[in-house]
């Protein structure tokens, strides 16, 4: 039986979750603990937890369409300059990623009140790629830079194409 929480190596942890609301808490706490080892600040760890939670919920509800037999696999990597989390589901990708939300329209019931998760992810992480395909599914990849003590920050050296820069 494959382990559901796996220390792949000293810098990589993988969590394999059932497709059930509530279980995203395991990925949240696991990523928080791992990021703490890497020295991410308390505030950024809270950002990370919410981003991981929202990515997992999106994977469970939309990517996996609530199917109880599906899985969500979260992979976390502690780099020298950043902390990377990828959340994989068995779906086909995200058709539309909202860049903004209009709460006035939601309160006025002109549009549904949900759909906030993807927006929050963009606000909370430094980089996110929403639509990478992988074997048997789709991945959301998030990056949080480790805070630098001096400026300019060397964290910006590693740039990958087709990603959304976070709003932070």
């Amino acid at each position: 039986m494959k382990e559901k929480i796996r220390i792949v190596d000293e810098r990589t942890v993988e969590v394999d979750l059932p497709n059930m609301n509530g279980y995203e808490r395991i990925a949240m706490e696991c990523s928080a603990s791992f990021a703490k080892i890497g020295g991410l600040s308390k505030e950024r760890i809270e950002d990370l937890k919410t981003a991981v939670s929202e990515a997992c919920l999106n994977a469970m509800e939309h990517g996996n369409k609530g199917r109880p037999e599906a899985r969500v696999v979260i992979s976390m990597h502690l780099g020298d300059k950043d902390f990377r989390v990828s959340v994989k589901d068995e779906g086909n990708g995200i058709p539309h990623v909202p860049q903004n939300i209009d709460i006035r329209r939601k309160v006025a019931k002109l549009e549904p009140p949900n759909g906030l998760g993807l927006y929050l992810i963009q606000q909370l992480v430094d980089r996110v790629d929403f639509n990478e395909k992988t074997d048997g599914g789709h991945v959301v990849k998030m990056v949080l830079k480790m805070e630098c003590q001096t400026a300019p920050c060397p964290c910006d050296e590693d740039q990958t194409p087709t990603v959304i820069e976070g709003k932070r």
Partner: protein
Amino acid sequence: MEQTNQFQLKQQNDVTVLHIQGDITAQSEPVINEAYKKADDQGAAQKILVQFEEDAYINSGGIAVLIQILAHTQKKNQQIGITGLSDHFKKIFNMVGISKFAGIYNTVEDALEAMS
């Protein structure tokens, strides 16, 4: 996975304090709706202070439930305050824009003073 919230209602001067215990997720909808209805049914509930627990986990599903409540309060011209949020969730609520429709306060005392 079943989740249960509990709530208490308390009147503080002209403000109805609605203390909601537990995490706030999409599964909180029935309890939050019931809590708001009870607060509203009290008749004079034109000012409602929603008090969360500071260690509560709040996700986008829970925020969507709160937005639905705000839709009702706006229609009824009720003044809404929110307290009990951690610094992180104050930030989240501001990001989402809930502060446009509800005052967000650090303490119950601050809220009662501002809302009176």
